[in-house]
């Protein structure tokens, strides 16, 4: 994937992602998932690391969110496990299938979305989306957010460490919340001041409101073939999903 031109790569992965969103069948979603894993493997991404990033948090949360769907009062259908007789509460086959499909769909979407930053330098991602017509202001904000999110996160961690080093007992929940509020205030002031200075630094270096960058990547036959392959794959999988194939 690293050898694919960034714009083509983003478009292809978005097409695959849309295909996954439109799939209703669990088998189709599993195939989409396997394709994502295969792409990660072929891109020399350590599979353990990839699986951790894709499957640990977001799909687990999606699974938790979809828990109510498995019950008969949300999705009526054939009971597979009766929890209470009066009132009647049970887990239905249709509910479980819906929850699995939903969780699998989220996992598949995440697995394609995560392939973009894992196989492309961030600047190439933003320049590519700029070339695809995303407004300059959105790209500037995205770049600044990507640059400063780590820095501010470090600031928060330092504040927490400093608080811990000056505390002599475990704080109660209310006290923690009050101190947390103060920390958020301090972070806001720091962010504001830093934002102002960053703007001055941009002005000082010739910023006039427009982004200028050099995009060196060129689309080759190999990129076009990858795009065509992705489109054909998605069409075939959707036809299979709808029972036409």
């Amino acid at each position, binding site marked *: 994937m690293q050898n694919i031109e960034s714009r083509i790569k983003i478009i292809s992965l978005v097409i695959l992602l849309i295909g996954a969103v439109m799939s209703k069948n669990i088998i189709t979603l599993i195939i989409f998932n396997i394709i994502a894993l295969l792409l990660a493997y072929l891109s020399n991404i350590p599979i353990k690391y990839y699986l951790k990033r894709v499957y640990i948090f977001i799909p687990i949360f999606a699974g938790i969110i979809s828990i109510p769907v498995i019950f008969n009062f949300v999705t009526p259908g054939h009971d597979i496990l009766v929890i209470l007789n009066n009132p009647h509460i049970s887990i239905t086959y249709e509910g479980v299938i819906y929850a699995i499909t939903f969780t699998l769909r989220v996992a598949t979407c995440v697995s394609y979305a995560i392939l973009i930053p894992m196989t492309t*330098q*961030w*600047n190439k991602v*933003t320049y590519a989306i700029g070339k695809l017509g995303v407004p300059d202001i959105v790209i500037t904000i995205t*770049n*600044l957010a*990507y*640059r*400063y999110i*780590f*820095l501010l996160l470090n600031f928060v961690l330092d504040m927490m460490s400093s608080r811990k080093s000056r505390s002599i007992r475990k704080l109660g929940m209310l006290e923690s919340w009050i101190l947390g509020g103060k920390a958020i205030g301090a972070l806001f002031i720091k962010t504001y001041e*830093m934002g102002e*200075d*960053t703007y*001055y*630094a*941009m*002005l*000082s*270096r*010739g*910023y*006039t409101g427009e982004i*200028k*960058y*050099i995009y060196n990547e060129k689309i080759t036959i190999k990129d076009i073939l990858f795009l065509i392959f992705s489109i054909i794959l998605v069409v075939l999988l959707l036809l299979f999903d709808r029972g036409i194939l």
Partner: protein
Amino acid sequence: MKEVYKLIDVSYKYPNGVVALENVNLTIYKNEIVTILGPNGAGKTTLLKILDGLIFPSKGEVYFEGKLLTEKLLTDKKLMADFRKKVGFVFQNPDVMLFNPTVWDEVAYSPLHLYSKEKALEVTDKVLKDMKIYHLKDRHPYNLSGGEKKKVSIACILSIEPEVILMDEPTASLDPKSRNEVINLIKSFKEKGKTVILITHDVNIASLADRCYVLNKKIIFEGTPKELFSLDLDELNLDVPDVSKLFIKLKNMGYNINEIPLTVDEAVNLLTKKFKI
């Protein structure tokens, strides 16, 4: 000598009414190193922002190469580009200067705004190689050490080959090796004919200057580093190089010392002459 900056009765008030600068008068000449010293909250950074046309004085006039710097003047795109090509500002905190996703993009930022794409590519690569940071070009600024960040922020300025370089605390929180690299860079700027205006608490950097100003909302001293360091600086809340302290102490003890050295090399020369080694 050609005047680069001339400030006449410059005052600046923050929006909350706090006075940062009061009737500041100073002149900076071409190809000199000028240091601005002073305690915290003395208005030093505000003064540099005024010199860089980022903020404008509440009262008084700032002239750059004989032209009055005004907000209106810098809204003209051509004049603004000319001014930005001539003046580079290295901020104290390199993190505010490094806002792009990679070091290469960072160094290319100004050239892309001020030159053609071909020239921007050429100067970016040249500056990265000259500053010996080419190997960092694909790194995210967050992953750089303090010294590397400082070098990259200086490279960002050098990529437009400015005639005037403004530096706010260039050696703050650097290890000795990075500090010496920055000091050597400042010396090389002078050799290349550039004008350097520095804010610093580092007395070793201050001693590099041709002239220095002590600022505490107003200018309270103007002269050479030698003149400054032979004064009692405790009242001004300024430090003196250790080697100068030693000679001042010996002088106060009654030893026949006529000259106070600022650097170890100067001290060695003086002692060599004294003892005729």
